[in-house]
């Protein structure tokens, strides 16, 4: 595996861990579990 690929995997995992630590997934869930008025052209 190329070194750059390993670096990208590591970076992705680091970002994920930071995001999980900060509970970013809660914001994703909050947005995804309510009707996105912008997506349907109302908001």
């Amino acid at each position, binding site marked *: 595996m190329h070194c750059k690929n390993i670096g990208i995997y590591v970076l992705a*995992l680091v970002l994920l861990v930071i995001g999980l630590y900060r509970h970013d997934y809660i914001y*994703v869930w909050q947005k995804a*579990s309510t009707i996105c008025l912008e997506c349907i052209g109302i908001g």
Partner: protein
Amino acid sequence: MGKREIIQCITAAACNFNVSGFMNGRIFREESKAVCVPGLNCYSCPGAVAACPLGALQSACSGTVLRIPFYVLGTLLLFGIIFGRFICGWLCPFGLIQDLLYRIPGPKIEHVPGLSVLRWFRYMIAILFVCILPVAAYLISGIGEPAFCKYICPAGTLEAAVPLLFLDQSLTAAVGWITGWKFFLLGIFLVSMIFIYRPFCRFICPLGVWYGLFNHRAALGISVLEEHCTHCGICHRVCPMEATIAGNAECISCGKCTDSCPSSAIYFRNPIRYGGPTEGKNK
């Protein structure tokens, strides 16, 4: 129906497993909505059981607080380095819709000189609507907005607006000019999808822009054995995405070139061996 079409159908069904949502007009609210699917699938679709990565990315910039979306960026990076635009060809529900519409009999617009220049348009859309406008709206008004979702995304219009506005009269009463604009845009996309192969993927989709950056190094995707390649150009002629080189940023790994190459120079990368040619052909 080939292997790719079967996997596309399974993925689309898995992303929109909440069938009851299409009956009662309510969207899914369980914990799985915190997870992003790799393809374009509006999370306001009544059937959607997970989040759209593009919508989730923009939602970090919408609202009254600007957040760096570490979780979504990490997810997108992981999807990109593992799959690249293999996602577009095999795992994206909106890609499946385009493939199905293209099967409708009619004249097809292929290899038109100059049409491929439009592929640069999606880079402008990605930078302007996904990156700049959401943050600009936040800086100007204090409230960000998911500009691509709001003004362009036909997946949201088709998968979310159509069923929700049909099922929920209270939403129908709130439609305005943006709704009309999005339906007009959707109409243009749907008609063009009959005559042009995947026009949204080729000219508009910001997700494809992102995944295309990883196409040449992702674990899954298409590569060319340079020592076998005779530069005959057959791969470019058969490529429905009109990729100039097999496996470049335009390639969605559909596999048509691997079947057509007379010198067997094109192959699907083997994710287990990470780079080597697979045994036999994949469809």
